[in-house]
């Protein structure tokens, strides 16, 4: 449904998107993750034709975004990162506006708007000004506006940033329900790894390039056997000693524990060395063992990696 091939986008001399190729089919929820400035938002904007493609091809539901821009756009529902509805218009006025400019007929817009408001759970707020909604409700209204014309391709740019956890859950239930219908494709960017793990497929972007792509399980498998969890006190001392170990590549704090990314097969040596070192420095190690890798571990590994490596 979304076909991207060899996509390039430059901002002056900076390459914002470099040789991006990706196919996403109906029913998928594709999550795009990566550090700030990786090119996720730029990719979204390229996909909906908001900025010019420098080279490469984008095909949306059979339409070429460069040559058949408007036909392609007609298939797209887009929720930008920044709230992009009219604050002085009420919830219903906003939806009516987008329904009408999207070509819904006079007799169609009202039932469709009510249906979509019920779907996102805003049916009781039809007359409230959009500017007076809470952050989570604004995002739901944004989603409603993006869905009002029943698009096949849904582009969601950080839809849950700044939204409380309960509303985030709501939001994801909506996304999953949409994708479950099987005829819609969802492309979503998110900074949250718990959300990333709900996607059917993930792509990791950095410096404009897609470094890695696959199902969450496949990505996690890449680091199988290479993540150890370390607990004890004091944590800063433990972390400092851990990174000094020759077989430890990286150590990241996760609340009350530390995740070590280690060389495969070096578990015993590390355990022995760290036990001794920590005792010698009057620290205490309560726990050190291999754990299944989390998406965070992948994210950290890829983020700190030199972009040439």
């Amino acid at each position, binding site marked *: 449904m979304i076909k991207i091939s060899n996509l390039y986008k430059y901002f002056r001399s900076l390459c914002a998107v470099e040789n991006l190729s990706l196919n996403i089919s109906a029913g998928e929820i594709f999550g795009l993750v990566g550090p700030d400035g990786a090119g996720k938002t730029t990719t979204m904007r390229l996909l909906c034709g908001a*900025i010019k493609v420098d080279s490469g091809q984008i095909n949306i539901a059979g339409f070429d975004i460069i040559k058949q821009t408007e036909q392609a756009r007609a298939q797209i529902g887009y929720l930008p990162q920044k709230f992009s509805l009219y604050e002085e218009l009420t919830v219903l006025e906003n939806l009516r506006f987008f329904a*009408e400019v999207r070509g819904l007929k006079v007799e169609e817009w009202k039932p469709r708007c009510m249906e979509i408001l019920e779907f996102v759970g805003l049916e009781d707020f039809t007359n409230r000004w959009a500017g007076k909604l809470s952050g989570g409700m604004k995002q739901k209204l944004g989603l409603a506006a993006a869905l009002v014309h029943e698009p096949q391709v849904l582009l969601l740019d950080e839809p849950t940033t700044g939204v409380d956890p309960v509303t985030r859950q709501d939001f994801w239930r909506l996304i999953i329900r949409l994708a479950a219908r099987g005829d819609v494709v969802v492309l979503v960017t998110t900074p949250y790894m718990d959300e990333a793990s709900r996607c059917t497929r993930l792509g990791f972007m950095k410096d404009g390039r897609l470094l890695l792509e696959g199902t969450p399980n496949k990505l996690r498998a890449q680091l199988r056997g290479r993540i150890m969890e370390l607990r004890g006190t004091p944590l800063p001392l433990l972390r400092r000693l851990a990174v000094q170990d020759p077989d430890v590549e990286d150590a990241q704090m996760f609340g009350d524990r530390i995740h070590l990314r280690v060389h495969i097969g070096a578990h015993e040596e590390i355990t022995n060395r760290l036990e001794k070192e920590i005792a010698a420095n009057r620290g205490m190690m309560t726990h050190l063992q291999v754990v299944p890798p989390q998406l965070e571990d992948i994210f950290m590994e890829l983020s700190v990696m030199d972009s040439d490596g």
Partner: protein
Amino acid sequence: MLNIRLISLIRKEFIQILRDPRTLILVLIIPVMQLFLMGYAATNDVRNVPLAVYDQNRGPAARELLDAYRAADYFSLEYDVDSEDALRDLIDNGDARAGLIIPPDYGEKIQSEENAHVVFVLDGSDPTSASTALSAAQLIGQSKATEIMVERQARLIHSAPISQPLIVHTRVWYNPDLISSYYMIPGVIGTILFALTSILTATAIVRERERGTIEQLIVTPIRPWELVVGKLIPYVLLALFNAVEILAIGVYWFKVPIRGNLGLIFLFSALFLMTSLGIGLLASTLANTQQEAMLTVWMILLPSLFLSGFFFPLEAMPKVLQWISYAIPLRYYLVIIRSLMVKGVGFAALRQEFLALTVFGIAIMTIAVMRFKKRLD
């Protein structure tokens, strides 16, 4: 066929205008305030200049001269002083703007048919009003002199007073009382229309970009021309509403006549709007924030105000500035609106201005629409 997208855009724009107090004030109140301010403040009329008189003669001849000054309402004889120092003090501290000194031998000299001299002192710190007062003072004095001369002649040849050899009959057309609001009010209409429409359209378009709503608009099938037209129509209607509002105040409050065809006034105003809306649209393609858009419009607005002949007569400007003024669209509209309201001319007299405004309107609009993109970059 009805274009739902366009109607929807226009409706949305109107809802936004009606719910935004800032825009409403800008549209409804500011023009009226401007009109009253400029209608009263921006006047070149010189009337009732306070005059201090140092009459050392105090005879009947001197009184006659003072009566002549009193009769014309250019001066009001407010101070009667008895020394030159007192007169100087009054002018120094601004109580009096002019002084008249009549020497002790004034009556004697008039009687004995010699040359009598009086001194008229004028505060020249405001050259505009001073020059008007100066010529008024001279004119009054000269006509008094002629009167005296005619009397002397009559006495000399013992006959009926002879007639003056040359009489200039003056006729001031269109505005016989030289009321400056006849000149100012049409100018104010022009400047308000210009400023309001260009600023409002520029900020209305840039607001979509500033608030990010343009991102959602981009993915809709709205055509760029629909976006432009949908943005312009509400402000054209507002501007025409404003024109009616200002015209009504001009006519009913300031008593400025509309001698020309009202339909023609609206036709030319609509033509002029093409230019001012085009400037607003152009500014919106150059700016990213509403503030930038405002500043960009002001950069065009300010020179327009000064070089259009709104404040200062074009004829008084150096040649170079006069040439530049031909590139100021507002100049032509001011000529048109002043001629239509005060002179009551027909279309034929305004053909050149019509042509100029048409060329400007089409050129600016074309550039603006070509620059207007339905994209973010």
